């Protein structure tokens, strides 16, 4: 486990980023003031209830119960204090005995008390960074492709659309193979006389993997909005005396807000929830919130479904909140959430 602490300025950046996002939202919201066919939907209604609605409630149910099925808040207490359940299981005198024997908490299979929260904050930080970088990289790309004079734009955008649908796992593996110790990148480095670099199993590697996977999700919605925008608007703006730069920040940028918001949501959400990117590129040394959840469900040693459910519930609420925000800003889904 890499002992990573989010730097103080990181908190500030996240705070400011979030505040800016909210401000953008508020500004935007403020500005824009017998036998009948429905029966055919019934099989799906049933399917939805069983495989979508009930599972959602099950996550909530498992979150509020212990393994014996009794109602409890312990899973959430355990979320704040990751050893809460463990301490309950081990008598205090035993714990003291082990500690006297010189065994650390880790030796006992216990992690830092704040591991859950730390990981969540770290995941949010990573996702925030990823979103910010994707926005910086993606907006210009989308803008270039949406240019009416660039005839190749509509064709090239397909190259961004296809990866959106394509298995992240495969793409991550492609990246992994490129960055491996014996991979092509390192060979090039050696050939250049830079020597072998350790490219994998660290935080930057995970970050690169996230950007690599999620960049198309930023480019496409922005492109979509820019492309649908009436070019006569910029002509009108120029006619009224705007120079090129003024046209951009007075007309194009404000009008592309729905796309930007859509893109931010579509990058941020999977970035917060990913687990295999960190597993493959971080080599188990970088743990994200998704890894934490995955481990609680699928690691052979702990079958902590209840604790895992509580973590999932936290994640679900996070996602629902951001989706709610998205719907407020982009109710018609102009950004074209999906293709």
């Amino acid at each position, binding site marked *: 486990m890499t002992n990573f602490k989010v730097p103080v300025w990181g908190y500030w950046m996240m705070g400011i980023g979030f505040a800016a996002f909210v401000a953008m939202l508020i500004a935007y919201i403020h500005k824009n003031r017998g036998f009948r*066919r429905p029966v055919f939907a019934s*099989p799906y209604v049933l*399917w939805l209830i069983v495989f979508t609605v009930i*599972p959602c409630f099950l996550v909530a149910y498992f979150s509020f119960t212990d393994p014996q099925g009794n109602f409890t808040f312990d899973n959430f207490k355990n979320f704040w204090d990751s050893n809460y359940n463990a301490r309950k299981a081990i008598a205090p005198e035993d714990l003291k005995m082990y500690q006297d024997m010189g065994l650390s908490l880790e030796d006992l299979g216990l992690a830092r008390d704040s591991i859950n929260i730390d990981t969540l904050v770290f995941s949010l930080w990573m996702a925030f960074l990823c979103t910010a970088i994707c926005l910086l990289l993606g907006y210009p790309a989308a803008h270039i492709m949406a240019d009416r004079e660039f005839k190749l734009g509509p064709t090239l955008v397909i190259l961004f659309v296809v990866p959106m649908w394509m*298995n992240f796992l495969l793409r991550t593996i*492609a990246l992994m*193979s490129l960055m491996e110790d014996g991979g092509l990148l390192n060979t090039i480095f050696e050939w250049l006389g830079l020597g072998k670099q350790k490219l994998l199993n660290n935080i930057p590697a995970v970050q690169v993997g996230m950007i690599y996977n999620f960049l198309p999700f930023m480019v496409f919605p922005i492109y979509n909005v820019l492309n649908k925008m009436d070019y006569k608007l910029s002509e009108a703006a120029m006619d009224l005396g705007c120079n090129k730069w003024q046209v951009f920040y007075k007309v194009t940028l404000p009008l592309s807000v729905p796309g930007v918001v859509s893109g931010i949501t579509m990058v941020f959400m999977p970035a917060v929830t990913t687990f295999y990117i960190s597993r493959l590129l971080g080599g188990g040394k970088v743990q994200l919130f998704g890894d934490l959840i995955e481990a609680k469900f699928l690691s052979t040693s702990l079958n902590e479904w209840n604790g895992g459910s509580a973590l999932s519930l936290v994640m679900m609420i996070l996602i629902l909140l951001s989706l709610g925000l998205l719907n407020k800003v982009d109710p018609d889904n102009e950004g074209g959430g999906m293709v």
Partner: protein
Amino acid sequence: MKFIKRFYLGLVLAFLYIPIVVLIVQSFNAGKSRAKWEGFSFRWYEELFKDPNIMNSLVITLAIAVLAALFATIIGTLAAIGIHAMKRRPQQLMLTLNNIPMTMPDIVTGISLMLLFIFTQVERGFVTMLLAHITFDVPYVILSIMPKLKQMNKNTYEAALDLGATPMYALFHVILPQVMPGVITGAMLAFTLSLDDFTISYFTTSPLVQNLSTLIYSQARKGIKPTMNALSALMFVALLLLLLVVNKRTAEEE
């Protein structure tokens, strides 16, 4: 300026595509090394097809994709027609519910389904994975058919009834032929997504029943073998082709 713009776009696309291209090239490398080119060969592809584990997973993957696409298309087509005919309120509710599996992160969908199977004590394996795949496929089928239904003159159904057709007859002879392109796109999309899925499969199957994605993941955690390169390359090409076709269809329909 023009050059800088194109150069920048080229860089971004290179970032996205170089790893994939390199992986595909490597899969034809005769040697084991990832860096040194030891000649063109199909060696890894041959090994791939000799590996019983991989072949087994391939069969599972295809079986799941075909079955899931089939069921999802049937359920989704009926559902889309039904939802389209609903009054505003229930229609909104249905579309919102329909959006849940699409907007929820895969990991949450996977876990919630896994909990369903744990809760109901269904042993995870082929059937549970199939059920999960149908669940995430149907919304996309509905989404492909809905625009077709909206484009359709809503009076054609009534016109059929007016001319003496029963609702069933009208459904099969008037509505269905008109939305057929959407149905086919939906089926192809469902097949592709099912082929493509890793996360949800990962949580809803047992280690004994693996599709290609989960197999690749379990192997990749231990480091990438050249056969995995070959397998990934094959999947890339298959998915790329399918996605291009689906994309072309949706673009044409719009």
